[in-house]
């Protein structure tokens, strides 16, 4: 047994190590997706199983669940050869390692007294890894080969000696080799720092004590999660939601969940979901499980972030599902599908515990890239994700312009984007009437409009929620749909695939506009206080007409 004070100290110290690794990469990364949007994560993983032991608090939540699978894939690969202190493996395989090809995982064994103590891992979203579309969100990919370069777990560093051949291969497969090189170095730095800090900790407390603490933290997470599940009434709760399309065929794709509570166990059964699709919104099973973990952690906040969380949960995800894709099914748009998985978990749980759950968030990542050449011939790629409204919740209206549930990413400032790329934003504003009506209204989405300052650029958009709006819960109404506008042949158009667009050519002075969804409402709109409706109209969050329609209010 370990005394509770030492346990608390070690919990803080271990999380601090992961947090410091996060911070090191954020500060040294070249591409704003990591540096500003924090699309990265670091942690410590079990020596044998690869299970998550400790995860940083500032990285991307979705990686919390997924990295265990990435480490497992490395363990499998490492079992075929020698493993030495100072080795670092690198790969981006999304089927074993989760997520998509843009996410490069670096995994390093950590030895203590000659024995493997645990694994340290770093994942970061690189700016460009080849494929058909700059920035790699290819909405019409039908095979992963069109999405980017594909690297299985290979040894990048052998006992401290970096293999520059691999670095050269990677650089030569990117439109942004300098950015890639900088990010890669940042991840190696983060792993170095993690190893150093962990060494200090083990030196101070002894490996035995730290190992006991790690086991106890896991047991604690499992105990807490069981207690939460026990509080939910037994029964089966179902929810369905849809993706607009897969970017290739304009057909809705169903994500269905039957969630069963039985005492302190939970079963999440996704059998009724769509089969694998032709386009890039498939996800690997590891990714699907990780997204359920994110949804549960949002509802049961205080459960520590480690593998113990999922001990009482059983998953049913058939091999024939869009949620269990195999190579080379394209998975580049995995963010859209996991957001939908999280939405159905919220909707199902709202039926079991309406007082614990919020309306759905805006539910699309809106990966927008603009790419072209500068006058001096240099290539530029601006790539960013955009925000929207969060759902109304039992306590308050939803947050205006928040980040997605899978992320803690901040949006790059306009001024940073304009300093780095030849664009000028003409609008960066809240979007009136986008929050779903409810006793507590959904938060507002945003309107972003930008103008090209160079001669020509190609525009790509990978979004969702253009046909199926973010749902409200407990009687709340859905938020507004996602919309994208561009000029073509003298008129303003929207993409035929709603929110997916490839290679639109934009000329100097032309503008594109993205309008993102708000969150779903919470509770019956008729229960909203007239005072709150009047304030919404006065501040322009809701137009007079919408207030009359949604709340039946005479707002004067």
């Amino acid at each position, binding site marked *: 047994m370990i005394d509770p004070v030492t346990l608390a*100290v070690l919990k803080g110290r271990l999380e*601090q190590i992961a947090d410091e690794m996060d911070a090191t990469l954020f500060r040294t990364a070249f591409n704003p997706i990591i*540096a500003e949007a924090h699309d990265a994560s670091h942690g410590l993983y079990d020596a044998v199983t690869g299970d998550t032991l400790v995860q940083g608090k500032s990285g991307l939540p979705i990686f919390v669940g997924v990295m265990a699978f990435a480490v497992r894939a490395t363990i499998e690969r490492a079992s075929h050869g020698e493993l030495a202190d100072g080795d670092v493996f690198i790969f981006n395989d999304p089927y074993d390692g989760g997520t998509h090809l843009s996410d490069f995982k670096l995994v390093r064994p950590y030895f203590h007294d000659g024995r493997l103590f645990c694994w340290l891992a770093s994942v970061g979203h690189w700016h460009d890894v080849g494929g058909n579309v700059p920035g790699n969100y290819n909405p019409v990919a039908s095979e992963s080969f069109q999405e980017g370069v594909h690297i299985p777990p290979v040894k990048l560093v052998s006992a401290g000696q970096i293999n520059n051949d691999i670095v050269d291969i990677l650089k030569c497969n990117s439109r942004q080799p300098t950015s890639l090189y900088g990010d890669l170095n940042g991840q190696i730095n983060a792993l170095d720092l993690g190893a150093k800090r962990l060494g200090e900790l083990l030196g101070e407390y002894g490996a035995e004590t730290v190992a006991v603490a790690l086991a106890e933290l896991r047991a604690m997470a499992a105990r807490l999660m069981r207690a939460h599940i026990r509080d939910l009434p037994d029964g089966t709760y179902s929810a369905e939601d849809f993706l607009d399309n897969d970017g290739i065929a304009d057909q809705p794709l169903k994500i269905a969940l039957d969630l069963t509570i039985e005492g302190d166990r939970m079963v999440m059964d996704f059998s009724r979901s769509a089969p694998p699709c032709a386009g890039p919104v498939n996800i690997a099973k590891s990714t699907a499980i990780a997204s359920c973990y994110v949804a549960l952690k949002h509802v049961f906040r205080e459960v520590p972030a480690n593998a113990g969380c999922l001990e009482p949960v059983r998953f049913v995800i058939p091999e024939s599902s869009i949620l269990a894709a195999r190579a080379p099914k394209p998975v580049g748009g995995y963010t859209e599908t996991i957001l939908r998985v999280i939405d159905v978990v919220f909707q199902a749980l709202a039926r079991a515990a309406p007082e614990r759950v*919020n309306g759905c968030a805006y539910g699309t990542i809106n990966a927008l890239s603009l790419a072209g050449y500068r006058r001096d011939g240099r290539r530029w790629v601006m790539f960013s994700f955009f925000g929207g409204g969060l759902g109304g919740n039992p306590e*308050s209206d939803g947050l205006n*312009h*928040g980040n997605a549930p899978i992320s803690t990413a901040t949006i790059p400032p306009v001024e940073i984007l304009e*300093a780095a790329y030849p664009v000028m934003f003409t609008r960066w504003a*809240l979007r009136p009437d986008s929050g779903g009506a409810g006793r507590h209204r959904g938060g507002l989405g945003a309107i972003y409009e930008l103008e090209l300052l160079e001669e020509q650029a190609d525009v790509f958009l990978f979004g969702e929620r253009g046909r199926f709006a973010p749902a409200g819960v407990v009687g709340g109404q859905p938020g507004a749909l996602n919309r994208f506008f561009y000029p073509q042949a003298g008129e303003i158009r929207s993409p035929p695939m709603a929110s997916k667009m490839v290679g639109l050519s934009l000329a100097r002075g032309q503008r594109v506009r993205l309008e993102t969804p708000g969150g779903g409402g919470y509770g019956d709109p008729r229960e909203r206080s007239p005072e709150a409706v009047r304030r919404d109209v006065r501040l322009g969050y809701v137009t007079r007409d919408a207030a009359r329609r949604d709340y039946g209010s005479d707002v004067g």
Partner: protein
Amino acid sequence: MTTKPSIVVGVDVGGTFTDLFFYDEASGALATRKVPSTRGDQSIGFLDGIAAGGHPFANLAAIVHGTTVGTNALLERKGARTGIITTSGFADVLEMRRRDRRQTWGLWGEFIPVVPRDLRLEVAERTLADGTIRAAVDPDEVKRVARMLRERGAESVAVVFINSYANAANERAALAALREVWPNDYLTASSEILPEIREFERTSTTALNAYLQPVVASYFAALDKRLRERGSKGQLLIVQSNGGVMSVATATRLPVRTALSGPAAGVIAAAHIANTAGFPNIITGDMGGTSFDVALIAGGRSVLAAQTTIDFGLVVRTPMIEITTIGAGGGSVAGIDRGGLLQVGPESAGSDPGPACYGKGDRPTVTDANLVLGRINADRPIGGKLQRLDAAAAKAAIDAAVGRPLKLDTYAAAEAILRIANSHMAGAIRLVSIERGHDPKRFSLMPFGGAGGLHAGSLIKAVGLASALVPRFPGVTSALGCVIADMRHDYVHTVNRALDDLDVGALGASIADVERDGRVLLGDSGVALEGIETEIELDMSYIGQTHTVATSLPADTVRNLTGLSIRQAFEAAYRRAFGRLLEGIAIRVLTLRVAVIGKRPKLDLARLRPAGGSLAEAQTGERQVWFEGQPHTTRIYDRLTLPVAAEIPGPAILEQPDATTWIDPELVAQVDGFGNVILRRKS
């Protein structure tokens, strides 16, 4: 008056008490006072306190003020009705933030910006990232929009244009137009506050400055006027969040820099006291009437943060001492919530009505619990305004609000109140230490504020800290910090040039300019200084990175600045921070930061050393004090007459005019050579 004014007085106005520390620069004499704060108009308590010191106002050389006026206005959202004028298309920047949310896990919570949407108006103007003016601002449009803001009740205005860090011409033109029509001086342009890239951080800092300006400026003006009316010719100086002090003129222009003024002064004093006493690693716990402020000092240095979030979305980007605040103090109100659970704080009874034992209110507080348990002397109330505390009223309030609902006797209910309050405070200490990887065994707690010494023993046991160091005058530590803090002016300017394209001569010239401005400000302040130091930092990165490394330039290299010396300084800083350099990638200079620091004479803490005395002489009596359900016969000592090296085993209570220290039966106390009391567990 023939003598030169020689009294420097530090004044820290808290929610409950106004603390004063007097230092006579001529004789070296030190004195303290504590008087009740006056809500509504703090300047009354302020002047009462100075008068209580017994020095003629004409003898004041400087009055250094740590204030919570700004902090409270932000936390309680009681700033002025403020308008924003911004670039067309960007009125919502303040509300959209950086698209963050309150916490990683959990999607609840909303954000109410300090400037509502109908007071954020746009004008057609545009500057590009390279500083080119794409559309000039139309002064008539600015005036039109200003009139709308005026009609909607705005008292102050923030002007924030996109890319104004690169070229402030449009902002300056808008400000000039505004000055023609705006009825007061409460106008803030972002390029004056923070000429730095990143529009949200700049907007938030500028808006909060405007939001605070009317409140803070009128307070300072009234204070300055009253001091002069009473005959003071001394300079009124204000402590900034960075731990340095500034003139009232600067504070009136930049009130956002006072966001953490009071707490910062306390940390400055704590660092000085602890270093002198040989405790380089301390956690300060400032317990006042309404809040508990925690800061960490490792290796003798407090941590300076480039920006702080006062509350979710309320971002202030100016250098600040890192301080964590929770709502737990002597005035924290205890009660039973709807779920039947005992709650203590964050609501505070403040100084009016104050704790039940003050005789005005009937809701029990932490102070009432301490009184009922015998830890505070009812006949010697701190602060001196009341003759005695009403123990019967405290008992009645505790019985009614906590004892009867929980079926506890008065003593058990009082101990339960303290247990909850202590666990809140222990949590705040863990947050800054354990959760950031610092081992509490290596740290000592420095409690201050009037009530800190009552809780220090419980806190070191709860968190596992090595010891507690109770300073000589715990109740007036922030006031002491005011007296010893240096003058400091921070400047920041976005450069955003590749090192290879940088005009190093021009950079050197602008450093010299800023340094000269700083020296002029220091000279104008009329404050006695021992010397002036300049700290110069460039925020630099490899081109392509968005985050930067603070690269300090040694003062002697600044005069002969070269591209090579800047590169070498960056590479050294980068290697120190991240281990490896990146070959073949160009370097960029993003921001220039200059701090001009006027060193003020340090008072000699050895002057606090007690002279002579004996333990027996210091004992003033005995009383029953409750601890863990039992009454203990407890010796009471006059803290200030305890001799050096005296060892006092618990149970014991040390009393002094501004604070009380409780040494429970499991602790032992010792007086060090500076009059500090060190508490440790009995071995």
